């Protein structure tokens, strides 16, 4: 691991040079009142002053819609093209992810690496370099520290920048990929000692012991609290779609008997259709059962099955919810009620 400092102006130069090397640069940009991770050619359009982006960077690995195969039936043959083999090789740099997002991207990669594996996510992850920025501010929706993540977490980042005094960033180069980028623009960085970065980081209180909550959830399936807590839930997919870890998908076939495409699209357990049987029976009949599934999947089933929470505490779902369903508050309610 190597350490540097870099000034804000030099950081912009660094990002410019990344783009000049022909890499795809994805960085936070503002549209209306929201902040999105979007591809950019112009580093002056990058937004720096935000607590968290409105939408997570998960679609860099797992796009909202993705062609898996295309097929074509000719007179004498059926031709099936595996779109994974046609994925473009383009080295991509994500700038401005928060440490929780970087952790989430590695978890997403692991989810998709489970048998039988996923060549789409795997290839994109290989091509991706993550330059994260530590959190010097947090809001009431943040709860990363309750789920084992921290505002200066280095996991998943190739380079982590921590804003410190004099408009400078403390730079931790964490991986070979990160080092390759820095080496190409060495003149923009100043060597540094390893710094104690705690004092530059936001204070995110860890008052929800997620592990303890996991245990309590084991017997929570029939508790009336789900109904009470989710009466106001209107059943949209916003929470799942802004979440950096929600990775349920739906397979859609588009086309005719002669030719077509099989697509993978984002899906959400908040939708009634998600569990609707062909018969018309729906095992999750009401929204409260769907909300319960969301909480149990993230805080009970995943910890039991793969020993991780399905949540990094970024708070996006709660900020984006049109009816103020607040995940952190829900966990507090569980802590008090169970």
């Amino acid at each position, binding site marked *: 691991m190597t350490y540097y400092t870099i000034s804000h102006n030099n950081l912009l130069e660094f990002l410019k040079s990344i783009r000049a090397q022909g890499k795809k640069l994805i960085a936070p940009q503002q549209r209306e009142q929201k902040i999105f991770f979007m591809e950019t050619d112009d580093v002056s359009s990058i937004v720096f002053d935000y607590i968290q982006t*409105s939408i997570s960077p998960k679609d860099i690995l797992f796009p909202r819609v993705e062609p898996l195969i295309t097929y074509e039936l000719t007179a004498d043959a059926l031709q099936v093209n595996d779109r994974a083999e046609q994925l473009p090789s383009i080295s991509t740099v994500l700038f401005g992810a928060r440490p929780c997002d970087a952790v989430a991207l590695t978890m997403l990669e692991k989810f998709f690496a489970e048998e039988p594996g996923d060549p789409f996510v795997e290839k994109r992850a290989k091509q991706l370099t993550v330059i994260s920025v530590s959190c010097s501010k947090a809001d009431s929706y943040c709860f990363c520290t309750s789920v084992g993540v921290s505002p200066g977490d280095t996991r998943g980042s190739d380079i982590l920048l921590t804003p410190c005094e004099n408009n400078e960033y403390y730079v931790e180069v964490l991986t070979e990929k990160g080092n390759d980028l820095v080496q190409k623009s060495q003149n923009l960085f100043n060597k540094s000692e390893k710094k104690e970065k705690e004092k530059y980081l936001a204070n995110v209180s860890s008052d929800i012991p997620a592990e303890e909550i996991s245990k309590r959830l084991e017997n929570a399936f029939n508790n009336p609290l789900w109904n009470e807590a989710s009466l106001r839930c*209107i059943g949209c997919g916003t929470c799942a779609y802004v979440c950096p870890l929600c990775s349920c998908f739906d397979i859609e076939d588009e086309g005719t008997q002669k030719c077509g495409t099989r697509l993978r699209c984002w899906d959400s357990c908040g939708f009634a*259709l998600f569990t609707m049987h062909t018969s018309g029976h729906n095992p999750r009949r009401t929204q409260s059962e769907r909300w319960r599934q969301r909480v149990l999947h993230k805080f009970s089933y995943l910890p039991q099955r793969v020993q991780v929470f399905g949540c990094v505490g970024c708070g996006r779902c709660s900020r984006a919810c049109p009816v103020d369903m607040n995940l952190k508050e829900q966990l507090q309610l569980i802590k008090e009620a169970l």
Partner: protein
Amino acid sequence: MNQLNQIAKELLTSQKVKLVIGYGEGTDGRVRPVFVRKSEDASQLIWDDRCRQNLAVYLNKTEIREIGFPIAIVSLPATVRSIVQLIAEHQFQVEDVIPIVQEGANVTTIENKERLEQYAAANPVVFPPFVVEEIENIRNKSVEERFEYWQEELSRCFKCYACRAACPLCYCERCITDVNTPQWVCVPPHAIGTFEWHMNRAMHLAGRCVECGSCTIACPVGIPIGLLTMEATRIAREELGYEPGIKCDVPAALATFRPDDKESFIL
């Protein structure tokens, strides 16, 4: 807003209603919908400028229906119009829902059909100036420019269906986009899929949208999606003479044929 709390309390104490749906304090300075069933909880109801969600959306929710009518509901002018429209569409009866409204400086209830229709007609939805501006701006565009505008806006849509979920008039038990044997609306959130969905929704809300703006407020990617349904309703108003949400017993604008219907606006 002591008047509001008093009214809610009386409605619950007298068992006139089983439930009062209103606004309460949420997290981080936001408001949220609250569901009051006990008179002692009526004090959590608030009413201020932050209260913008159309709460009529809950009147068709399974869990709310299981609590049972009659229900009192804290209502903005648009909420009242939604209630009238839902009655016109036979979703419930006039006596099932008691709107709690602001009339001048007073908070009061509406408990009969005449008052309901009168209030709805006398209190049109007032758009914020930026909405009026944006509508004007889009109307002045050429067809090509308009297409570009929506292409750009809808490119952010990932089909979370928050627009549908926030809409009191989107109550279909099985939405057209969820009908998948066969698939009627293209599901994937690519350019064709998002256009197909939003055009379908606008057509289904023509002459029904009460222009509350809840869909736009709910959109997590900031698309002014309500402009589409508002425009569809404007056309229904101008071409068919149909104003949604002011009469409890009128036939549906697009499901009724009249020999003198204009055909000039049909593509």
